[in-house]
Each structure stands twice: as structure tokens, then as C-alpha cells.
């Protein structure tokens, strides 16, 4: 009895192990990546943060890495002159737009692989999948698409140019991303690709959480979950500061 049970569990164990070893694709054991932080905390004094990413590759090839922020719906508006005044006129709405996008490569992208691969994996600003709502022709969408990327770059939320991935030796690499103070909160995806002779031979995904913590998080939560109490708290705080202000003023 005892022996049989042992036998069954042993079989199960082997099956499980077989499953585990079968499931990872060719990619997982050729590329390993680690982040300096699992999460980045936005505190009251938050003034941007540096995210360091270290990795090891087991095969020859180039490395490309994308850092993609949470997806949002965005509207791009175009100003035109109306009676001499600049007003918003036409607009285009895009959905599933990363609120933040940065990327890094070991060599210039065009030397690493072709457009098809970059497009499939959304590596590089030109290959972002920006989906416009409504039925506009690609020619109509293009200026809005370009404007979206440009506006995001000016705001510091999209990369101006790729970061360079540095190699410590043939296997170890490292790259630093400087996140700006206005970095949007949410779940970030970090995709790392190992590309050899134009073909993706390894891939690794990690996630990063960026969010408010401490006092600032409490206020945010309070404001979003108890709107009514938050409103009264804001009123009360202002009334109290008003009284205190009055007595300070009166002293002289």
C-alpha cells in the first residue's frame, strides 16, 4: 500500500517535472533579466527614479528591450485659426496607448533586424501599435499619430532615442532608464529580446509596478473611494486654515 502510493506520487512528480521542462520555449534558458526594483514607489517627495536592468544572455546576438507603461485612451486635438484665434477643432481618439514608452538596444535598430520583427514586437516608436478609433484613412491618422508621439516626447513620457545597452562581457548586459517625476502610475511591462541574425531567439518578460505610497497614496485613495468625505475634509481644512490665518494676521 505504502509502496504503491510512493510509486504514484513519484510518477506524478516526474510528470510535473517533465511538464515544467517542456513548457518553457527555447527562449527562457538563453536569456535572464533582473530589475533593480520590483516596484517603484511614488512618495510625497518623488522626483523621478532610476531603474537599472541587468541581464545575461547565453547565445550570441543583439539585445533589445522595451519598457511599456499602462494603457490609456488618449485624444489628440488639432488647433486651427478661427477668427484669428487658435481653437481646438478636429480631434482623433486612440485607444490602448501606452502612457509611457522607452526602449533600449545594443546596436542601432536597423542593424539588428527588419521591420517585420520590430513591428511584431513593437520595438521602437515607429512600430508602436497606436489604434485610432473611428473610420479614418491611414493618411488622415498619420499626422495625429505623429503628433501623439511628439507630444508624449515633449512631456518626457516617450523615448527621444533608444538607450544603449552596455555589455560588461559577452554575456552580461546592463541598461539604466531614468523615469521622470511625472511617470504615470500603473503596471509596466519590460520585454527583453535576444535577436540573432535578424531572428528573435530568446525573449523574457518582467513586470514593474509604479504607484503612489505613503501619505500621497492615502490621499489619492481617500479622494477616489470616499469622495463625499474627502470633499468635506477639504472644506474643513480650508475653513480651519482660514481661522488660523485670520488670527495670525490680527496679531500685529
Amino acid at each position: 500500500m505504502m509502496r504503491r502510493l510512493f510509486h504514484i506520487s513519484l510518477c506524478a512528480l516526474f510528470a510535473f517535472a517533465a511538464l515544467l521542462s517542456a513548457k518553457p520555449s527555447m527562449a527562457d534558458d538563453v536569456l535572464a533579466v533582473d530589475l533593480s526594483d520590483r516596484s517603484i514607489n511614488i512618495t510625497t517627495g518623488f522626483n523621478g527614479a532610476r531603474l537599472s536592468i541587468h541581464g545575461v544572455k547565453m547565445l550570441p546576438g543583439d539585445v533589445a528591450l522595451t519598457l511599456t507603461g499602462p494603457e490609456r485612451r488618449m485624444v489628440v486635438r488639432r488647433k486651427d485659426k478661427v477668427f484669428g484665434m487658435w481653437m481646438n477643432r478636429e480631434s482623433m481618439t486612440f485607444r490602448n496607448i501606452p502612457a509611457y514608452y522607452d526602449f533600449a538596444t545594443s546596436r542601432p535598430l536597423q542593424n539588428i533586424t527588419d521591420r517585420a520583427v520590430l513591428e511584431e514586437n513593437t520595438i521602437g516608436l515607429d512600430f508602436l501599435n497606436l489604434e485610432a478609433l473611428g473610420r479614418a484613412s491611414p493618411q488622415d491618422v498619420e499626422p495625429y499619430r505623429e503628433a501623439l508621439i511628439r507630444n508624449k516626447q515633449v512631456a518626457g513620457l516617450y523615448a527621444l532615442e533608444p538607450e544603449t545597452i552596455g555589455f560588461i562581457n559577452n554575456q552580461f548586459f546592463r541598461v539604466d532608464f531614468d523615469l521622470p517625476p511625472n511617470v504615470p502610475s500603473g503596471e509596466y511591462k519590460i520585454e527583453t529580446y535576444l535577436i540573432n541574425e535578424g531572428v528573435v531567439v530568446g525573449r523574457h518578460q518582467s513586470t514593474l509596478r509604479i504607484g503612489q505610497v505613503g501619505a500621497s497614496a492615502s490621499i489619492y485613495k481617500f479622494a477616489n473611494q470616499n469622495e463625499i468625505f474627502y470633499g468635506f475634509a477639504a472644506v474643513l481644512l480650508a475653513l480651519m486654515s482660514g481661522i488660523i490665518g485670520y488670527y495670525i494676521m490680527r496679531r500685529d
Partner: protein
Amino acid sequence: MQIYLPIAEMTVPVESILALGVAVGFLSGVFGVGGGFLTTPFLIFFGIPPAIAVGTQANQLIAASFSGILGHLKRGNVDFKLGAVMFGGSLVGSVLGILIFRLLQHTGQIDFVISALYIVLLGAMGLMMLYESLRAVLKNKIEDGETSKLQHHPFFLALPYKIRFMRSRLYISALIPAGIGLVGGLLVAIMGIGGGFILVPLMIYVLGMPTLLVAGTSLFHIMLTSIFTTLLHAIANNTVDIVLAFMLIIGGVVGAQIGTRAARKIRGAYARVLLSALLLLVCCFLMGELFIGPLDIYHTEVR
């Protein structure tokens, strides 16, 4: 020093926000105006979304108007009944204002409307005040309040729902103060300003109430309206940033202190010349933005 604003979800330099508060407080100390007309454009200039600038500004107004009222209260210069009737009108005005704000936000015209309203209001008030104060400076005498009372106009006399306001010694239709309150409510909700510089002349010339009571009563009305609007903004739009409001309030208290001291040294007419110049300066700045055009004609926002 940088501070992260939890609701605006961005970092701002503490010094600049405090300095803005001080500047606005200084103006209120010297001239007795709220100075909201400066705060909203500057907050937007700092990159704070217009909706949050306006919502937070309403919150800051509560503190500023309340500490102002306390002073007038001691001298008994507040007509509570009249203020309450005006508040009745402003309830409608603020709800309407917030609806208009959301509609404009949806169609993407909010920035334009805020700028245009500021240009018209600041330009008109600035020119009128400049004319009046320059005349006073040149003639070198104190002007008597004009006595062309609009409340005797047949239109205002014919309105129904007449009420007696004992404190102000008025017997007028309740619709007049309520109508003025409605304008006040719209101003707080759409522009984030108390609108004292519009309410005060209306109360003097249209209501014909004693000048002594005007300041306290308009502050009382502004306080009630901004409390109501702050609640609406917080509940409906989630656009009140307590941290930002608190910094503006602290700056305001310090600035008002400096302002009241400075006021003793500046002659009234000269002070009004300065204020009108300031109003016109902000007006020109906004006009430049509207007419010369933006750096990039495309603009992206999160929906």
C-alpha cells in the same frame, strides 16, 4: 524642493506654488481682491490640468474668504440674509457651471473658453479701473462714489418676489441678488475665481446696497459658493487636490500679511493703477497665447 501632488499626479516645485500663494495673498492684502484671476492661469502654466486648477482654486477660496469674513464680522458688516439669497442663485449657477465645464472639456474647448473669459473680464476691469484711478491720481482728490443707481430702473422695479433686507435697508425683488449669485456661481465653477471684482460693482450699482456692507456680504456669498463648488468638484469630478490647495493657502496667509502692511504705505489711487496694470498684463499674456498660436498645433490628453 519638489512635492508630488496626489490628485494631479505630478510633481511641482514647492517654492513656486508658495510664491504664487504669496503673490495672490499680497494682492488680497493690498487691494482686497481675491486674486484667483492670477492663480488659475499660472497653475495651468505650471502644467496642472485646467480641471484640477479650477477645483483646487475653489477649495483655496474657502480659506481666503473665510478669514476675510471674520474681520468684517467683528464690525458687523455682513448682510447674511442678502448673502443667503445670493447663494440660492449661485447653487443653480455652480451646478450649471460644472455641467458646462464638463461639456466643454468633452468637446475640447475648455482651455479656449477659460482664456477667452479671462481676457474679456480682465481686459474690461483693467481698463475701467485704469481710467478711474488715473483720473483720481491726476485730479489728486478722492472721488465720491457715483450715485447713478441702477436699481431704480423700471425693469428691476417690476420684478416679482420683493423681499425686505433690513440690514442693507433695501426692499427689492429677490431675483436680483439671486441673479447676481448665479453669475458668481458660474464664475467659481468655470473659472475657479470668486469673482469679487465683478460681484462688488454689481452689488453697488444694481442692488444699490450700502458700500460698507458690500465687501463682507460678497465674501460671505463667495465662501458659501466655494464650499458648495468644492464639494461638487470633489464628488463629481475628483479634481480637488488638498496638497496643492494647502500650499496655496499657506502662501496666501503670508502674502496677505505682507500686503496689509504694504497697503498702509501705498496711496489707494496709485495701488489701483498698479492693480489695473497687472490685470491688463495678465490679459495681454493670455491674448498672446490665443492669437499668436501654440508651439504645436496638436495637443494630446488622456481621456
